């Protein structure tokens, strides 16, 4: 039995609950139901999963999905050594055997053909067939699959298949209310409320520019980065430029617009 003790989260992650998401996660875990988290990037999905893994005292294996990811990257593959080949479990198989929470971040980035490998794990069977290894892995009772994706900027092709979607219990994450988002920034970056509110106001403008040159507006995570830079003595203008405006776009006009918007915020 793999213990996966290195994947246990020792310290409580800071998480600000905005609804019934903790209760939903706990019930889903108890009932062995897979969970889907929807929401824009940087709104707290991954932090929430970390918090729940800590709360439930389960190891957390996170897999960042991408276009080139294959089923073998999830379940495992044969490797070559001096004696021939041997089987190496992938992260999903390890989590399935050891009863970890397996978190597939941005699942729609993976090809739909790859994603179907999770189907037998996410219904009543809770099995993971390893065809290339001729093995059938029964999921540990504490195993739970959690996936996330951002429905906002994905292409139509990157929707989940209907047969995949309907296996999950879902939670919808959105940007927190301005006052709550400011509180999160204050707590995470240890800055005063006025600075946090200025950043939240600027973020609201950037979120209005989605589809006008920005794929996404400033995330809460980006705002925290800017606040942390400003906390240590960097001017707020430079902090916003480095943590918000420069990372999000290379478009000169858009950058100038965001900078001028910043100037109106204070």
């Amino acid at each position, binding site marked *: 039995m793999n213990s996966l003790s290195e994947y246990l989260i020792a310290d409580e992650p800071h998480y600000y609950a905005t609804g019934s998401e903790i209760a939903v996660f706990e019930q889903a875990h108890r009932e062995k139901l897979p969970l889907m988290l929807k929401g824009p990037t940087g709104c707290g999905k991954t932090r929430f999963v970390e918090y729940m893994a800590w709360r439930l005292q389960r190891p957390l294996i996170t897999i960042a999905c991408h*276009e*080139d990811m*294959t*089923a*073998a*990257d999830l379940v495992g*593959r*044969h490797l*070559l050594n*001096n004696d*021939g*080949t041997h089987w190496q479990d992938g992260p999903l198989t390890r989590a399935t055997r050891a009863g970890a929470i397996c978190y597939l971040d941005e699942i729609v980035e993976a090809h739909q053909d790859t994603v179907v490998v999770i189907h037998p794990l996410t219904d009543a069977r809770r099995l993971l067939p390893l065809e*290339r290894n001729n093995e059938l892995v029964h999921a540990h009772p504490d195993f739970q699959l959690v996936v996330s994706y951002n*429905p*906002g*900027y*994905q*292409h*139509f*092709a*990157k*929707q989940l298949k*209907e047969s995949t979607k309907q296996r999950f219990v879902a939670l919808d994450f959105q940007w927190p209310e301005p006052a709550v988002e400011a509180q999160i920034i204050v707590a995470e970056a240890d800055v005063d409320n006025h600075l946090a509110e200025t950043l939240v*106001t600027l973020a609201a*403008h*950037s979120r*209005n*520019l*989605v*589809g*006008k*040159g*920005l*794929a996404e507006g400033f995330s809460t995570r980006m705002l925290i980065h800017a606040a942390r830079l400003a906390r240590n003595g960097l001017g707020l203008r430079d902090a916003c430029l480095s943590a918000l405006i420069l990372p999000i776009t290379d478009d000169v*006009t*858009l950058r*100038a*617009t*965001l900078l*001028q*918007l910043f*100037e*109106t*915020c*204070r």
Partner: protein
Amino acid sequence: MNAETDQIQRSAELWFAAWLGERASCQWIDCQTPASARASFAQNKFRLPRHNPAHHRASVAHFYAHARFGGAPFAVGKFRPIQIVLTSLFEDARVEQLVLRERPGLRRLWAPYIDALHLQTRTKESDDVAALLRRLAVALFDPAWPNNNPWVNKARRLFYARESEWQNPALSRELGNLLGNDLGQMRLQFNWKSYVVEPAYRDDHRGLWIDDDEPPPLEEQQAGICPDREATRIAAAPIAGDTSARRSEIGDWLIAGAAPVLAPATLPEWDYARQFYRAAWVSVREQEPPREAPPEAVARLLEMSDAALPSYRARQHAANRRRHRRGHDGDSLDLDACIRNIADRRLGQHADMRIYRRLIEQEQPGSLLILIDTSLSMGAPPALATMADATVRADPSALDHAKVATLQMVEHTTRSGNRCAIYGFCSDGRHALHMAPVKNFSDNYSSWKILTRLAGLSAAYSTRLGGALRYARKLLADEPAAAHEIFVFTDGEASDIDTVDPRYLREDACQAVHELQRAGIEVEFINASAPAGIKSIKI
């Protein structure tokens, strides 16, 4: 439009979107007298004078103040023009002062205009009403501004004494009424027709008023009335007996703001009979993006996209994948590479560890413009000949098929790293080639947004194909990608109400295709009305 104007316009549009988001739309107006042109708004539609780029940022921030703190339009009632103007000035000051509490940085944006006005009041010292109104605008913006006119001081004192009531728009009306009566008693003449709102970044005040005691119906308030419709309604409203001349004057003022002078783009057209191009023959009316369709229409398209053309997606997917061998990682072991690896090791030689194989996507960078024929004939199901048949059966129309295929094509194109734009087109004679932008190249819309906009395209009018292709070429001209391609979903019937010869527009379309081919732009026509579904056609 040159590149510099284009850049200024884009910058202003970004600024507008950042402040007002998707709840409002921005339109450009070409004015005959740029110096006195002012921005304007009606409900959630905002219009900016194209020729005054210096004012755009300040104007949009002022719009935001109205959108954030403004109330329902004031009813004209028995107000005289001077009271309308004064109420509007107080309203401008009220919403600006409120927004400055939240956004003190906006003072830096507006202050230069107030300073310029201040300078004007010093150099042109006069006590006519226009000069008093300029002074009032400065005094309300800046409570510390030194002023020696008793009427202006009274107005400022009253406004700032009731700061606790600034949240209530009725305050503006009350003060406008009161100060207007004072001016009346001073026997000063006010020439409303020559009056221009100052400072220059502010709107023309028309959006603050409605020439009717009755508020607009709730459904119109929610839907957002277009200025033209609103103007028509105002013009048709009954006017009370002895005030009819005054009300007519106010009605004219409101209507004048709803008729901007728009300059349409023009295109040439090929006359095959005379073998020459008719210069500036076709006028292009670029429309606003289609309204997002109701959920049931979107759901219908979604259902079609899953069921109607499953093989299209699979074919494209397969065509763009290739097997990559001899990789350091991959889906499975490459048997030949493994055998070579073992053999090399047994021979004591260096063994190549690239023993895996996988399927990878091929990339085809380029810019693709999809044109969708939205003429009336596209509204019929593919197998049916007429719209009359279509009303009997509820089968998906050729336009529906085109929308679904477009959606799938966009998904595939953008996924491959290509840029993509979508336009619907139809024509109502040569003076009205309607081009409806569903998505521009620079728009980074989600698939859902594209889907809802596509669903909002409806079938109407005729097909002036050649003009649409030439306009597409203009749209592609600024695209940086090396490869340009145009896909046209159509039923292949180029025709319009002002052409009798069926060959005329067909020949023009052929000529337009040759022009595109000479420019290195590939064109592919897809017959959306083929009974068996989507098929390529040659023109």
